[in-house]
């Protein structure tokens, strides 16, 4: 399996904001989603091979004159593909241990992802779609297509079609799309992602989005038309979300985000609610091995007609150190206070992430959280493979 994955074409990865260490402030250089995400374009597949993995390669890539041409455009490394069609597949499996006050209370295997997908680019037309398997315990409910409560489900996180405009710098699209807000970090359970409900594990929603990517800035705004995986319709949020990010230099970017969405019955309050989030975020790589990411958001939930407003906030400060290519040491501090979690919660993340070979990475996380009830510790190991 490892050999197969190693020989295969790089079809997709995830959003890795730390790629700013290589001067990539723009997600759209490598990703089909202009704000970053699962699908990679051909150029992104090449960068995945050239920059992410320990093997092949290693050492200082800037002085690696013998660096070979990546094998993009060939499925499994040898089946030629047309440049307009890029299939992909993803498998993420993990094992989790949860401890309360230092005592293990839960441990189990996690089926995190098993998806197939493809993206298409024909002239200015663009489309992308993925379909996956969700185990009975591992179905992301907000992304499910079928609705079995006891068996496995079909899962569809992302599918959209659109058209490039402004010479490819703009993309207008419609479908189920990642909500544009803040950092698109992989840690979908981080407080900033859960407080703003903008992770890209399951928080995608249906809508129409317009994105622009210029050398010194990028932005996306999306009309949120409701998540059709959620029933009944009263629970679906409708509104608008967007961000603007400015590149102060090839290794420094700073942005702002805003979201406002209304539901007749919020999933958290069960009454008509207007949810808003506003914040700022930044990525900076002062030294190529080091990337620091920061996000801070204010969140409000207004129960319409009752005069009740819950105010809160969420913060994320993460450092990613890559001492040798492919091997990442990371740590993060986070905080959150929302209406539904009135106590200030704090968390510390630490871990190791190794991009072993192209298309395969392993990761171990330790997350300590406290501030609401007893302190909890989570240990998570995961194996991620993608075609």
């Amino acid at each position, binding site marked *: 399996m490892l050999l197969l994955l190693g020989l295969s074409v790089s079809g997709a990865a995830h959003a890795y904001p730390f790629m700013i260490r*290589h*001067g990539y*402030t*723009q997600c*759209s*250089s490598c990703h089909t989603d*202009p704000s970053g995400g699962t699908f990679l*374009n*051909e*150029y992104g*597949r*090449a*960068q995945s091979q*050239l*920059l992410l993995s320990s093997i092949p390669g290693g050492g200082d*890539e*800037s*002085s*690696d*004159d*013998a*660096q*070979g*041409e*990546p094998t*993009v*455009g060939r499925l499994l490394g040898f089946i030629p593909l047309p*440049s307009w069609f890029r299939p992909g597949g993803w498998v993420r499996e993990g094992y989790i241990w949860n401890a309360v006050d230092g005592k293990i209370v839960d441990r189990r295997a996690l089926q995190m992802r098993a998806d197939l997908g493809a993206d298409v*680019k024909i002239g200015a037309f663009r489309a992308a779609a993925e379909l996956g398997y969700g185990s009975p315990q591992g179905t992301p409910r907000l992304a499910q297509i079928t609705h079995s409560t006891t068996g496995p489900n079909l899962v569809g996180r992302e599918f959209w079609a659109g058209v490039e405009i402004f010479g*490819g*710098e703009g993309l207008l699209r419609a479908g189920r799309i990642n909500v544009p807000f803040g950092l698109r970090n992989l840690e979908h359970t981080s407080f900033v992602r859960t407080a703003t409900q903008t992770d890209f594990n399951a928080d995608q929603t249906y809508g129409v989005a317009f994105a622009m*990517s*210029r*050398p*010194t*800035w*990028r932005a996306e705004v999306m009309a949120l038309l409701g998540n059709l995986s959620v029933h009944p319709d009263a629970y679906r949020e409708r509104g608008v979300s967007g961000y603007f990010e400015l*590149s102060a230099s*090839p290794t420094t970017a700073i942005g702002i985000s805003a979201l406002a969405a209304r539901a007749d019955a919020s999933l958290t309050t069960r009454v008509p609610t207007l949810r808003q989030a506003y914040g700022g975020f930044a990525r900076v790589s002062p030294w190529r091995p080091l990337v620091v990411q920061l996000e801070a958001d204010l969140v409000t939930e207004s129960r319409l007609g009752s005069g009740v407003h819950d105010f809160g906030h969420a913060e994320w400060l993460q450092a990613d150190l890559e001492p040798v290519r492919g091997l990442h040491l990371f740590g993060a501090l986070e905080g959150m206070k929302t209406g539904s979690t009135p106590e200030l919660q704090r968390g510390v993340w630490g871990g190791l992430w190794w991009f072993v070979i192209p298309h395969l990475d392993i990761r171990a996380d330790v997350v300590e959280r406290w501030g609401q009830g007893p302190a909890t510790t989570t240990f998570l190991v995961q194996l991620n493979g993608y075609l």
Partner: protein
Amino acid sequence: MSRAVAVGIAGAVLLVGGLVHAAIASPSGTSVVISMQGTAGLHIEGTTHELSLSEHDGELSFQVPLSGVDTGIGLRNRHMRNYLDVAHFPRAELRVPRWSLTFPASGKASESDTPGILTIHGINRPCSVHYRAERTPSGELRVRATTKIDMRDFGVEVPSYLGVHVDPEVAIQVDFSLHDL
């Protein structure tokens, strides 16, 4: 006697050569940044810290070895060297008439445009260079010069790789300091 003549001739040659081709103290704090833009907001910077400066027949000649330009990715460096045909044209050169430059007095700064001749890929093209020079009280001259070129004017093929294209317009920024000029 013959030795003295030989030494004298050699000295004369060196003296005359020195008048027409004066070596100027090597620039310090050198940074040459080549900026390109491309598809979907792509921004690429190539950087080198190699810059030599000499004076010849009233012209200042700035030379940059192109093999040392680093874009941050080894394969991209190799592609760039191929596009520039560095094996045959290893240096970029800018020649600027000395008379066209304004050298500020101690503690002062000057900013202006100057014409020059830029040689890349073995092709000479006139260009306009914007510069700002500042003389510190200690006598050090700090210079920032910028220009923009179209790589097609120099016979360089516009790079394209896996669906990503680079605009033919290239911005060049050079920073350096001198103690003797």
